[in-house]
């Protein structure tokens, strides 16, 4: 089990009802962590439409999560 800090933006922030949380998880990848959170909070976006960043850099869904990592799930972007 590791402890990670998760930050939410946009639709995920609204569906989660908060901006940041620290949680203890058995997940070892962003993909596994997203599925865990999605099941718990009812996120509508499927995993394949969400990218992940760890410690402020994009990572692949299968990257290894480490204790203390800051994780952000990135909904489909729409800037400009």
């Amino acid at each position: 089990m590791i402890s990670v800090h998760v930050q939410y933006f946009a639709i995920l922030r609204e569906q989660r009802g908060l901006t940041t949380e620290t949680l203890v998880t058995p997940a070892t990848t962003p993909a596994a962590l997203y599925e865990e959170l999605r099941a718990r909070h009812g996120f509508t976006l499927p995993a394949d439409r969400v990218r992940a960043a760890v410690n402020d850099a994009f990572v692949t869904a299968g990257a290894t999560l480490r204790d203390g990592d800051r994780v952000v799930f990135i909904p489909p972007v729409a800037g400009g």
Partner: protein
Amino acid sequence: MFTISPAPLDPGRLQRQLGDERAGACVTFEGWVRNRNEGQPVLSLEYEAYALLAGTEGERILAEARAKFDLVGAAGVHRVGHLQLGDLAIWVGVTAEHRGAAFDACRYIIDEAKARLPVWKKEHYAGGATAWINCATRGDHGGPAATLPPAS
């Protein structure tokens, strides 16, 4: 430099920072909040950014443009916050000796920025409905402008 700004953008000031006697061409792109999207009337727009990563990714896009095109300078800013119709949401400015490179690079930067910056846009419609653009899922009856219930 690429930045994320919670304050209104000042295009004149932004462009002056690109001033350079080697430049013969300056192309700018401005994205404005318009009153309609996908056929639906829009009242206002909320922009939210993962500012740190958006800044990094924006800088990366500018560096790519400098590598691909023969530029003198390039810069960009994305606004965040609640914007009204006509407000300036994103500004991109490019200078080059010749106009071809300036047009191509400006287009490249805005295309990549729209596709890659971690920035999100929520449209507000008449009656209080809202939608996070590009975040509709099958259950929302599809389409990028499908409405979600009004925010609490």
